[in-house]
């Protein structure tokens, strides 16, 4: 009898524990449609050609690459490749593909698709903006139907992290023949497939044979469909999530203003993480007087970055050094310890005098029109720089003009946002190296070039981290452009949306593991 009581008690405790645990993390429910509100028009859906951020928000769920980035930890994980090996000289990468992956038309993924994808991106006729990222690739060989070997022309320790974005997503061989126009039709391996591309909205439907499963062995994704609605006006976007017309708002237009406006609304959850992307002041080092490093240094001393974080980002951000503060393993030097980071208008004036320029120095500043904070930042900078002997004239232009002038280096300075990356090479090389593909700053410094090249050729992570630590200081002193701030990213979800993780990379892939409670 006594034993029976103990058993009953034990059972009760067990049951209580089980139900208690269930209350904390309820089991995901299948079905429903997740509605996402974004502000930018959805354009080209060809993964290798698209450039708009809004296109990638959709493509994230349709296409997959060989590897994935964990949206929380930003660490590499297997994707379409279940494993890989690197040769000792760091030049040969051998990928073993998963065998249970099919494209949305039911055809199985194999090594020829991987080769065809890389060939398509590198083919000049494709005009892929991704081509410059894959430039280290020399040759792709099919070892057997599920093993593919990529040989690099030179060592590139960051190579694996290049393979994690949908822009380098794997498409089937004969992709264009199969889909017709890849700008409006898709054929990927991702959790959702495109079923409707209408004016101002895109509808994705669950791919029933998607390969990934959750921890309990259930097939992903949970929701039947995902709809993206384009709501260009940020105020309307906020109203839409409040009124329950959309379940998640994310991307441009969802910022500190939205977070403040929606704070305390009971059925909404506000998420935020530090951004990998950073705001910058581009400087034309190919043009006098900005070609003089002392003038650029004066600009750095004239800038009160902390104040910008407070005024422009409502205190929700970090003063920006050359390496994102989220990437701990690359030993970012705390920004306050970097040279020329403490505002000092008097010393700035001194430097300008040493450079022999007449005061005040007239500077034109062109804020990018697609980032609302850029104009605000230009206004704050105008005030700050005035104290150091610069007179700033703000030039407001539209996006196409901005792009044309940016590309042609037709600017004194501009304010913009640069996309960040999880590897410091991808983060810095293309902008700062004298041969970098997006070095529109005309910046040239032999010592910095050498450090970047050396880091690129070094496989040992500890040695690389050391080189990047040195680079941070050199960049802070030479000033190819001003790293200003890493703002916090925001997203707002209705509480019925579960399992969505806001990632520093702005990835939408967590939607595959999100579900709606009813």
């Amino acid at each position: 009898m006594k034993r029976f009581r103990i058993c009953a008690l034990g059972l009760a405790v067990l049951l209580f524990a089980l139900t208690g645990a269930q209350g904390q993390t309820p089991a995901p429910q299948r079905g429903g449609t997740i509605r996402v509100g974004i502000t930018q028009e959805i354009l080209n859906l060809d993964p290798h050609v698209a450039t708009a951020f809004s296109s990638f928000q959709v493509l994230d769920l349709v296409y997959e690459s060989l590897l994935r980035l964990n949206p929380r930890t930003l660490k590499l994980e297997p994707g379409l490749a279940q494993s890989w090996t690197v040769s000792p000289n760091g030049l040969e990468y051998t990928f073993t593909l998963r065998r249970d992956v099919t494209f949305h038309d039911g055809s199985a993924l194999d090594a020829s698709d991987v080769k065809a994808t890389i060939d398509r991106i590198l083919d000049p006729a494709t005009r892929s903006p991704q081509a410059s990222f894959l430039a280290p690739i020399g040759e792709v060989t099919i070892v057997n139907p599920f093993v593919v070997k990529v040989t690099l022309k030179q060592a590139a320790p960051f190579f694996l992290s290049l393979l994690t974005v949908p822009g380098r997503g794997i498409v089937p061989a004969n992709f264009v023949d199969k889909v017709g126009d890849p700008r409006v039709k898709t054929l990927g391996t991702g959790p959702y497939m495109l079923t409707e591309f209408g004016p101002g909205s895109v509808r994705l439907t669950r791919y029933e044979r998607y390969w990934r499963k959750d921890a309990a062995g259930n097939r992903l994704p949970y929701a039947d469909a995902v709809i993206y609605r384009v709501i260009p006006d940020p105020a309307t976007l906020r109203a839409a999530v409040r009124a329950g017309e959309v379940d998640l708002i994310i991307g441009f237009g969802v910022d500190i203003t939205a977070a403040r406006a929606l704070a305390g609304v009971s059925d909404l959850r506000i998420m935020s993480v530090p951004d990998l992307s950073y705001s910058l002041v581009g400087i034309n080092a190919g043009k006098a007087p900005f070609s003089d490093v002392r003038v650029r240094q004066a600009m750095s001393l004239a800038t009160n970055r902390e104040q910008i974080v407070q005024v422009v980002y409502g205190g929700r951000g970090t003063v920006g050094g050359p390496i994102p503060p989220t990437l701990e393993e690359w030993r970012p030097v705390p920004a306050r310890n970097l040279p020329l980071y403490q505002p000092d208008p008097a010393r700035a004036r001194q430097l300008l005098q040493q450079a022999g320029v007449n005061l005040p120095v007239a500077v034109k500043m062109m804020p990018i029109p697609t980032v609302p904070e850029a104009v605000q930042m230009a206004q704050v900078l105008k005030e700050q720089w005035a104290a150091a002997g610069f007179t700033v004239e703000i030039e407001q232009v539209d996006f196409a003009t901005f792009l044309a002038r940016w590309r042609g280096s037709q600017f004194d300075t501009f304010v913009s946002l640069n996309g960040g990356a999880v590897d410091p090479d991808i983060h810095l090389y293309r902008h700062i190296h004298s041969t970098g593909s997006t070095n529109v700053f005309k910046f040239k410094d032999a010592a910095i070039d050498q450090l970047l090249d050396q880091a690129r050729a070094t496989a040992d992570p500890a040695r690389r981290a050391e080189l990047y630590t040195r680079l941070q200081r050199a960049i802070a002193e030479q000033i190819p452009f001003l790293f200003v701030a890493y703002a916090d990213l925001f997203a707002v979800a209705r509480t019925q949306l579960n399992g969505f993780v806001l990632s520093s990379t702005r990835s939408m892939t967590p939607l595959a593991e999100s579900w709606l409670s009813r």
Partner: protein
Amino acid sequence: MQRYVAQRLLLLIPVLLVISALVFSLMHLIPGDPAQVILGFENTDPVQLEAVRRDLGLDRPVYVQYGRWLSRVARGQFGTSVRTGRPIGTLLGEALPFTIELALYAVLLAMLIGIPVGTLAGTTRSRAADGAMQTLTLLGLSLPAFWVGAMFILLFSVHLRWFPVLSYPPLATDPLANLRGFFLPALTLAVPNAAAIARMVRASMVAVRGEEYVKAARAKGLSEVLVVRRHMLKNALIPVVTLIGIVTGYLLGGAIVVEQVFAIPGVGRMGLQAIVQRDYPVLQAVVLAVAGLFVLVNLVVDLIYVLLDPRIRYS
């Protein structure tokens, strides 16, 4: 009458030609390169840039580009959007119904509000009531649409929950939901136009108030309501019809702000995107469609004159 309509329709061709030539050259005068917009931030290879420009025909002189475009349009081909690759005919077919419905709905609301308010103001003997209406209409004319729209959404959608935000089902499938969904955007668009119509009606009513035929109607012993309805309003409405015609045309093109605020994927938003992206063929098609509709609306207005005043004849 039929000949007149045919003449007016023929007149459309030179009008559209001039407009298209103007837009084409203006568009090419503003700085910014569609090829660079297509390639985006990452791709700065000058060889690729040239190749894209060649694909788009942008390496040719503007008049050659215009000639090519014209010959294609004459054959009924608007081409594809350089940015999305979708056929422009399809894009217009999707976007136009939104804008046309929005404009017509807004005109209807503007008339339903503007005509009674103007009539009341023009016939009332109370100076206070007239003054109040004058102030209200001035307010209606001055408040910017983006603010009015945002306030309507906050009040009627978020707080009161009377109207959905951003729900525009097709009229054919669910007429009630459609009219409900379009109500707030149409009302936003209608506000300044209702105010303009009210002011015009008031002024016309004041003008005809002293006319002999009005006095005669009163002398016959007709009730005041009948005098206003049958004699004053009918004559006062002729200039108002002109105004409504103009307003309708403007609404078609001017729906940009309201489409932006209410996230309606109409031609206004399509045109705005085309400008930002330097999507020349799309912008050309949008301008042509809106200009064509504008001319057609004006034709309809001229025909309505005949119905209102039998003395007007077209030949």
